[in-house]
Every structure is written in structure tokens, then in C-alpha cells.
């Protein structure tokens, strides 16, 4: 066990101190694959994000990558090793027009393998320029690489998204040996309880099991709390913002345009108007969340092909004829006849009104 501790601590120190190994000037980082056409220029590689774009970096065994980006529009970029699709933690960041520096740590994924290349997945609408890149590779020694992988997973920040409410990412002490933090802390608890029992006996001449168990429990809970703090603090939004509209606009960092679209709707749709929310088929979240943020306006989630559409959780209904406004977010079905775009966050996130 203590060998594991030592190697993990060594890996943590390595993580903190290891300098980037490869420094690639703009344009030198040629993707191994991309889902959209990529154009090279002296400033770097640029590509359009027409709703979705994926770029595979050309390196295997990446420990850490720092990328300089310039973005026009609003996109959410998520990243991970090729093996990470659909698995937690979901690493993502919302980027708006301007320069940004992105730090990728593919080893924070339990599914990481030395052969998996990092993938960037962009959602939203805009243009991205990929500039300078710095790439640190994993150690060549497999044992050292495994220890580093264990440390990266152990200290990875929690992912906050719409499913976090159900389950937090399990804290793994060693992803490669499948040892949970709780097992280690259980052992710590027993060891501290025993040590406290013997020490207190020696100091006071009495057996004090209650005090010993309490000391051990406090130690175990404190260690677990410290780990929780390390994981949660980066994931929490702790900058106060007095304006509720701003909080709604910025409050969906895992979706590129949803918050801004909700703000636009709240600003432009009248209290007495009837709204239809139109989203991509299978996207259960956007339509309901738009209706929620537009409440108390009458709102239904549009189900293409149906005559009558229903509100949140099936409460309330309206036909297309009754709608005054449609709020569309990344919809894959056409705008119903008779509606024209009136205001937009982007080409795929907009508000349409009945044509006069």
C-alpha cells in the first residue's frame, strides 16, 4: 500500500513540476484527423464549427497539452483521449470570441491508454484558430506512466453537468489497480484508531475506545473532505453575480448558446405570448430548460410531426397555430411554416416569430 502512496506522491510532484516537452509554433500542429476542412496559415490552423467539429491531435501518450486558440463566435469545446467518448469526467469549457488558452489533461480519464490520441470536440457556431501548442508526453517507463495516470485520475476535478445531481465521479485512488479512495481511508481509519487506542492507553492508563474511534473518524473524514475540496473547488462557480439575467446567460457552461438564447428570449418575448421550444430530436434538456427559463410565459416543447405539443412534464398544451414565438436551439427539423427569424444568438440558436 505504501509503495502505492509513494509512487502516487512522486507522480503528483512530477505533475506539478514537469515542463512541456514539445513546443510547436503556430501551424506546426497538424491534426491527425478532422471532421471539417482545416486551413493552414502562418497564424495557425483554422476551421469552421458549423454546429459540431472534431479534431484529433497527432500525438499518442500525451500527458498534458497547452493550446492557444482564437475563437470567433461561441463554442463549447470538450476534450479527452480517443477512448473517452461518453465517459466521465466530461472536460469542457465554453469559449467566446477572443483568445483562449486550453490545457488538456487526457490522463484524467480512467479510459486513457498510452495509445489514445487527444480529441477536441467543438459544439456551437463559429470559427476556431489553433495556434501555438505545447505538448508534454508521458514518461517512457510504464510503471511511472501508470503512477502518473493514477495521480491524474485521483486529483481530476469533478465534472458539473446536468447529470451530476445523480452521481459524483467515484474517487479512485488507483485507476490501474481499481482501488477506491474509500478503501484506503478505511485502512487509515483502522490504523489511526488502533494507534490512538494504544497511545491513549499509554498516556492515561485507561482504554479509551470512544476517543480513539472519534479521532480516527475525524482523520478519515478530514482526508476525504480535503480530497473533495481539491476536486470540487475548480468545478464550482463562486463568483457572485447580482444580475439574474447574467446568471442565466452564463449558467449553462456545458452548452454553447443555451443560456444566451434564454436571455434573449426573456428580453424579447412578451409575458402574454405563447412560446414553442424547438430542439434537436433526442435532446431532452434544451426544450424543457428553455421553457423553464421563459416561465411564466406559456410554453410547449415542439415535437415535430405532432398536432399538439406539450409543456414541461406534459403540463399544458398548444398547437402550432397557437404559437406566437418559436425559440430554436440546434434544431434538426425545419422551422414550421409561417415563422421567420426575428433575433438570433447564432445561425442555429434563434427566435422566430410568425410572419405578418
Amino acid at each position, binding site marked *: 500500500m505504501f509503495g502505492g502512496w509513494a509512487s502516487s506522491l512522486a507522480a503528483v510532484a512530477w505533475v506539478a513540476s514537469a515542463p512541456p516537452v514539445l513546443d510547436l509554433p503556430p501551424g506546426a500542429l497538424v491534426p491527425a484527423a478532422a471532421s471539417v476542412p482545416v486551413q493552414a496559415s502562418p497564424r495557425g490552423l483554422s476551421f469552421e464549427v458549423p454546429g459540431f467539429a472534431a479534431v484529433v491531435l497527432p500525438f499518442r501518450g500525451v500527458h498534458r497539452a497547452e493550446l492557444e486558440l482564437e475563437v470567433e463566435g461561441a463554442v463549447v469545446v470538450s476534450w479527452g483521449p480517443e477512448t473517452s467518448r461518453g465517459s466521465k469526467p466530461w472536460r469542457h469549457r465554453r469559449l467566446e470570441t477572443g483568445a483562449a488558452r486550453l490545457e488538456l489533461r487526457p490522463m484524467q480519464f480512467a479510459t486513457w491508454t498510452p495509445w489514445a490520441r487527444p480529441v477536441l470536440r467543438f459544439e456551437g457556431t463559429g470559427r476556431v484558430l489553433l495556434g501555438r501548442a505545447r505538448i508534454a508526453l508521458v514518461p517512457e517507463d510504464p510503471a511511472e506512466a501508470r503512477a502518473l495516470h493514477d495521480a491524474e485520475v485521483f486529483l481530476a476535478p469533478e465534472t458539473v453537468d*446536468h447529470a451530476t*445531481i445523480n452521481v459524483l465521479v467515484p474517487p479512485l485512488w488507483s485507476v490501474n489497480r481499481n482501488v477506491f479512495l*474509500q478503501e484506503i481511508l478505511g485502512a487509515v481509519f483502522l490504523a489511526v484508531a488502533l494507534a490512538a487506542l494504544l497511545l491513549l492507553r499509554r498516556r492515561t492508563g485507561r482504554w479509551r475506545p470512544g*476517543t480513539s474511534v472519534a479521532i480516527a473518524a475525524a482523520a478519515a473524514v478530514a482526508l*476525504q473532505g480535503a480530497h473533495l475540496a481539491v476536486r470540487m473547488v475548480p468545478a464550482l*462557480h463562486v463568483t457572485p453575480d447580482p444580475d*439574474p439575467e447574467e446568471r442565466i446567460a452564463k449558467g449553462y457552461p456545458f452548452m454553447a448558446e443555451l443560456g444566451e438564447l434564454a436571455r434573449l428570449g426573456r428580453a424579447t418575448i412578451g409575458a402574454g405570448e405563447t412560446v414553442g421550444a424547438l430542439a434537436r430530436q433526442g435532446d431532452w434538456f434544451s426544450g424543457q*430548460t428553455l421553457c423553464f427559463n421563459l416561465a411564466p410565459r406559456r410554453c410547449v416543447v415542439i415535437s415535430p410531426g405532432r398536432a399538439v405539443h406539450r409543456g414541461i*412534464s406534459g403540463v399544458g398544451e398548444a398547437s402550432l397555430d397557437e404559437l406566437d414565438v418559436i425559440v430554436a436551439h440546434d434544431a434538426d427539423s425545419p422551422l414550421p411554416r409561417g415563422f421567420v427569424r426575428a433575433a438570433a444568438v447564432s445561425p442555429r440558436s434563434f427566435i422566430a416569430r410568425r410572419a405578418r
Partner: protein
Amino acid sequence: MIFLLGAIAIVLSGRALLELLGLARRAPAVDLALGWFLGSGWLGLAALVSRFLLGVPFGRAPAIVLLAVPVAAWAVLRGLGLLRRAEPLPAPRPRLLPRPAWLFVPVAAWVVATAGAILLHGASTPTHTDDGVRVRAFTPMLAFEDAWPPEARRLLAIAGAVPTFVPALGWVLAGEVNHFHVNYVVLADLLAFLALLVGLGSRSGSPERGWAAAFAVLSVPLFVYHCTSTYQDAVLAMFAGASVLFLLEHGRTGDGRDAGLALALAAVAALVKQEGEIVGPSVAAVVLLRAWARRRHGEALPRGALPALAAVALLVLAAKAAALGWRDAVPLLGTVAGRAAGAWAPAAAASSAEALQAFGVSLFFSGNTGMLYWLLPASLLAAAPRAVSARHGWALVAVTILFLQVAASSIWLFPQYTLDQTTVNRALLVVSIPASVWLADFLWEGVAAERGARAAPAAAGGAGEAHGPAG
């Protein structure tokens, strides 16, 4: 600002209820927290009954009247001299600061920092937690609109009266919706709960117990996250935890007023989520059983507690029957009965054996419950006789019943949601929070007893401290 005004009205109403019921503790932090809890419960109950039993729409004037009723009743009864001021409990001198400082300064710092992070994140984040079926913060919107088609009434049954009507108070007072009020209510519940834990410990001369309990509940990781959301699982857990806290207090003081508070908080828990309809009565049943078992020791319930409890239960049942029909008045009971009768079965892919394994993972390894389910059995093993004493035993029975309910639900009733980990972890909150309160009390009591035993010979038979040592 309007939220703050609404909150003050709720606290005043709840505070008046405390006086009417003779349950005030005469400790500002405790009475403030209890005022918020009982006022929330009163608003939920009164709005449910007035809307669905009496047919009075929920709006600004009715909400003001409902909140004013306890205050007016208190003022009238007091003016007529019919309200006896409750005798203060015989208790040791209140003590604010826990000792030793080297231990409790970091504990208090953790509690304050965690609560601060929850407040900031919770107040900053719009609702983005959804399970695809319902938006949890939606029923207050229905209360605000006062539109109750059958689908909306079904949602009310799922969410419960307190989560439906309390967040809507500010909206009906102001005439407009600020979505964040739903977040604020959960955060206010957390602040009240922490104030109750710490304040009650300080009031009874043992601030260590209170800080230990606050530390314990804020060390349950999923609870910490839930308090930043608009889900109500953490809220139900806090009401259940507060009820168990007073059950423990009743074990310590033997004063019927503590049992009365445990019952009152269990009644409020019954108004949070459909699960509350089973959780609240379960804890209340243990309180009643304890009072009956200990009646010869002078630990009876306050006069009128039983009729009041029965009246609340009947009113809730009648109001829900009026809203939903008798058949659906307690939907969870119908679900359990249907499963027991074989009327329906869980998804074919989900077996109870697999669910049992997944339940174990949730308890011990997933990290959602922290170290609680490791420490609880170990602590019980280390001091089994004390765990079943009159002081701690009844509260342990309540926690065990809650655990068995969640286990039955997770393994037998809905194994599919245990296998995919969608509901099991948040269902466990209603066990984890009362269990954390119990464990903190139990562990600190063990330390205090051993220190007291050491101090007793030194004091050469001097007056021992009934409530633990001062230092």
C-alpha cells in the same frame, strides 16, 4: 429583496407557531432556524389545504393571510393571557466556542468554507439538473400561476407541498418570477439546518457536538452538491436530520418539548417529495414509540401533540385526495402495494441481486456518501451497548428504518435505477444526513464520557456534568 421579505414572514409565522405549541427553545439561533423550518411547513400545509380543500386560489392576499394566522393567534392568545410562557429547560450554561481550539478551529473553518462555497455556487447557478421527466423547480411555477390541470396535480404529488408553495411566496408577493428563489429556499434550508445543529449544541453547553454534526453532514459529498441545486432530496434529508436531532435531544433531556419538535419536523418532512410521506411518518412513529416506552420516566409528549399530529395527517390526506382523488393521495404507497401484489415488475434487465451489489458500491465505494457507511458500523461495533442506550438507541432505530426503506426501494422496488446509479445516491441522502447527525452525537458523547470518567476521580466525587465535560 422580496425573497428576504417573504423569508422574514415565514420565520415570524414559524416563530409564532413555536410559541403557540409551547416549543420555543429561547435560543436565538435555534428559534430562528426552527421558525424557518416550521414556517415553511406551515405555509406548505396551509396553502395545500386552502387551495385544494377550501378552493381558495393561491395568491398574494391568501398567502399573507395564511402566514398571518399563527402570528395573529399568538397575539390574541397572549393578549388574553391564555398562552403560558414555556419554562426554560434546565440546561448547563450555554457555551459558544468549542474546545479544544486546535481541533475545532479547522472543523469550523471547513464548515464555514463549505457552506460559503455552497451558497455562492447555489445562488449563481440556474437550474440545470434534470432527469428528462420533470424540471424540479417547476412546481413553484404552477403555484404561481395557480393553474392545476391533472398533470400539474400529479407533479405536486411528486414534489410535495413545501417545495411547491414556499419558493412561490416571493413571486406571488411581487407578482413576478425570479427563478433563483427556488435556489434561495434550498440555501436558506441549509443555513437553518447548520444554525440548528451548531446552535442547539451551544445552547446545551456542548458546542463541540454541534460543530461535529455540521462537519459530518457537510462531509457527505453528494449532499454538498445537492444543496447547490434545485432538487429537493437534500431538503427532505435536512428535515429528517433535524427531526432525528431532536429525537437525540429528547434522549438527552427527557423533555417532552424536544419530542414535540421532533414530531413537528417529521410532519414538515412529510410535506417534502412523495418520499417524505413515508420518511416523515416513520420518524414520527419512532418518536411516539419512544415517548410511550419512556412514559414512566416522565418523558411524555407535550399535551395535544397526538391530536395535532393526527389533524395534520388528516388535513394533508384530505387535501391531497381533493387534488388527486383518494386513490392517488399517497402515490408511493400505491407503487409499493402494486409491486407487492405483483401488479408490475421492474425492468426485465434489472435483477435484485445485481442491484444489491450496486447498492453496496453506492454505500462504500462510490464516494457519494463519503466515509459515512464505513464509520457507522465501525463505531457501532466499538461501542454497541452505548448505541442501544435510551440516549441513542431510539434515534438509531429511526435511522435504521430509513435505511431499510431506501434499501428496499433501491434493491426491490426500483433496481434499474440502482444499477444505472440515477437515483440510488440521492435516495440515500435521507439516510445519510440523519445518520451523520447521529454519528457525530454518538462519537462526541463517547469522547465526553471517557473524559468525564477521567475527570470524575480527580474531582473526588464533585458534581459531574450531566451533559459532558466543559473542556
